[in-house]
């Protein structure tokens, strides 16, 4: 809340700077804008930027560094302890948050919360009574550390507000004094604008990098608690839900198998249908029909996958049960199975395959078709022997992109494939996938420091590497294909 007000004040200062700067620029040439190097509004902007730029930097830096500093201080306070450091710090953080909320709602008087000799048991009791989640009883060191965290944060926030306001005012005053008829305001503003654009671009790149790094670090953290060899080669997936216990089997192979099996079924549905649709649209359909049908097919790609999930659970599953279930052939135990999820996912992927392939087939030069017709080839011979081979690399790229969608798909498998991790060849059995298990490991109030929760990161990492690999291969193929014709 404090930061919110702070930013509000800074924005108001910047707006004032814009108006003042403009007015001052006009004033210093006696109202004749032609006497200025740059138009007055640029002078105004230099002032606004002089307020916002430094404040932005200071604020970002402060917000990043303060938690690190507080963490380091608290960590030093706790000294060596048998508990894993990460778990203890998490507990301190939760206690601090609980205390803060309790003080805010008045359950615990501020004086008691800050009291260095306050009784840990008493505070625990009050926190629990107030409904602030405390997993286990607070120990004295944890309580002291939590109090210290609160104190440090409070003073840090006050200092930050002071520094930020000082910087903003200094920027305003200095920038206003800089304004003169010869001041080259426009290049300055344009340079700053470019800096802003570069910053936006780097944020996009850096967040991606950050996500990957966090995946990597948490995966490494998981492998400290659970042997990597067992994760990658284990044939069983049986997490225990009892909390922190070593009783879980967390082998990724059954999940990977489920993922690949369902993806293969999906592709077996999507590739032929999508490809034939693409061939029809690009080679046979009248232009007017194509203009109508292609967007319609692409609408399929816009349907949220949860809707496909519902469709799998409520329509396709029961339908398959009627044919293959107890009443029919007796192969299927329940509506949720590999075949259900695979079919529905295949339908979801049809527009990916058909739309991309259609673009690629249409991009094959007409000259090649003419050459083939000119030799007395029929249309189907031309398509099979000239057009498709020429488009093949691009089509393979399209299929790989569809495959990486299939591997990452979650909702359809959560609803359509069942929850049992199984290594089986029978498509009528329920199976589950990496994505579905990430969901189930993280829903419910799991302890995020336990291997049962951290395994989600290792699963995520596995998926990421898999789909990244597919995407890279697909992009390389598609690019090589493009070069071929340019």
């Amino acid at each position, binding site marked *: 809340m404090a930061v919110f007000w702070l930013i509000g004040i800074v924005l108001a200062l910047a707006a004032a700077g814009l108006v003042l700067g403009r007015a001052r620029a006009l004033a210093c040439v006696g109202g004749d804008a032609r006497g200025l190097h740059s138009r007055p509004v640029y002078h105004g902007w230099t002032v606004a930027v002089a307020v916002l730029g430094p404040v932005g930097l200071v604020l970002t830096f402060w917000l990043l560094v303060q938690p690190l500093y507080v963490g380091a201080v608290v960590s030093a306070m706790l000294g060596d302890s048998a508990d894993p450091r990460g778990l203890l710090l998490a507990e301190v953080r939760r206690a601090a948050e609980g205390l803060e909320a309790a003080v805010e709602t008045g359950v615990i008087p501020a004086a008691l919360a800050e009291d260095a000799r306050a009784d840990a048991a008493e505070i625990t009791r009050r926190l629990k009574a107030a409904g602030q989640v405390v997993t286990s009883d607070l120990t004295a060191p944890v309580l002291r550390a939590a109090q210290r965290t609160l104190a440090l944060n409070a003073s840090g926030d006050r200092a930050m507000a002071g520094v930020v306001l000082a910087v903003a005012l200094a920027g305003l005053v200095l920038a206003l004094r800089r304004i003169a008829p010869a001041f080259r305001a426009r290049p300055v503003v344009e340079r700053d604008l470019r800096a802003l654009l570069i910053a936006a671009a780097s944020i996009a790149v850096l967040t991606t990098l950050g996500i990957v790094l966090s995946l990597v670090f948490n995966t490494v953290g998981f492998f400290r608690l659970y042997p990597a060899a067992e994760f990658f080669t284990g044939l069983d997936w049986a997490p225990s839900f009892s909390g922190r216990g070593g009783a879980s089997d967390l082998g990724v192979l059954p999940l990977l198998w489920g993922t690949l099996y369902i993806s293969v079924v999906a592709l077996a549905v999507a590739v032929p249908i999508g490809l034939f649709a693409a061939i029809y649209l690009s080679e046979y359909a*009248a*232009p007017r029909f194509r203009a109508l049908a292609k967007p319609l097919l692409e609408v399929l790609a816009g349907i949220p996958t949860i809707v496909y999930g519902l469709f799998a659970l409520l329509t396709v599953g029961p339908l398959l049960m009627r044919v293959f279930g107890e009443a029919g052939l007796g192969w299927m135990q329940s509506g949720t199975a590999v075949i259900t999820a695979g079919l529905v996912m295949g339908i979801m992927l049809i527009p990916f395959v058909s739309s991309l392939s259609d673009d690629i087939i249409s991009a094959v*030069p007409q*000259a*090649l*078709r*003419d*050459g*083939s*017709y*000119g*030799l*007395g*080839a*029929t249309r189907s*011979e031309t398509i099979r*022997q*000239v057009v498709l*081979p*020429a488009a093949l690399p691009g089509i393979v790229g399209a299929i790989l992109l569809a495959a990486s969608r299939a591997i990452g798909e979650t909702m359809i498998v959560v609803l359509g494939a069942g929850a049992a991790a199984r290594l089986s060849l029978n498509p009528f059995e329920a199976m589950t996938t990496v994505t579905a298990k990430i969901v189930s490991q993280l829903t419910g109030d799991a302890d995020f420091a336990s291997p049962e929760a951290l395994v989600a990161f290792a699963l995520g990492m596995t998926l990421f590497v898999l789909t990244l690999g597919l995407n890279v291969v697909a992009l390389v193929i598609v690019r090589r294909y493009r070069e*071929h014709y340019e």
Partner: protein
Amino acid sequence: MFDAPHPTLATPTTPPTRTDPKIAACNVDVHYGTTHALRDVSVEIEDRTVTAFIGPSGCGKSTFLRCLNRMNDTIDSARVTGVILLDGEDIHDRRVDPVQLRARVGMVFQKPNPFPKSIYDNIAYGPRIHGLARSKADLDGIVERALRRGAIWEEVKDRLQASGTGLSGGQQQRLCIARAIATEPEVLLMDEPCSALDPIATAQVEELIDELRASYSVVIVTHSMQQAARVSQKTAFFHMGRLVEYDATSKIFTNPEDARTESYITGRIG
């Protein structure tokens, strides 16, 4: 593919010439949608002769050329009327399959368009489709003969499995000519075959055309008057969708009947 009614003629309207024409076109009109691209063209093309079509851009040379092997059928908006006889047989007759016709009347395009396949497969494409080879050795023979006649055998004989798209422009065009020859057509249509080539490659292709005359009827569209004069025996001058003048090449270039022809060959229109 083509169902528009045609005025059928029992016999060609012109009296029989010394040798029967290979192709006789009578009152051919072509519309693209509402564009009237070709108006009332009648012409007789002789066997074992190189016939050149000249004229300014957009005058309908390509359009007429594409009528001769019914390539205009592949353009939805194109509508062709009139009679075209190949060896006295109407090519628009219901008994004639345009696909088969195109095997008899081969075509080489302005821009070299080798398939993204090996050199060997490029040449073997037509013979395979039309079942011209009985065995692998037979096919090898056809490919070699076509490449030799296309005057490119020496350059590619050691890399028949290399991609056809990796050749130079001139080589690609000779490959395309060899590819057209491989299906053993009776007529070879060439639409500005040298416009994408350098002078040396052009000279090679012209030499090749002169050799082909021994066994085929060749029709070549060209923008170069010199080329028409060098390679052809007969020349047709097109202007604004009409055939203005058609005569022996030497006559057209030395003593044209029509004022428009004279303006064109002296460089005043076009």
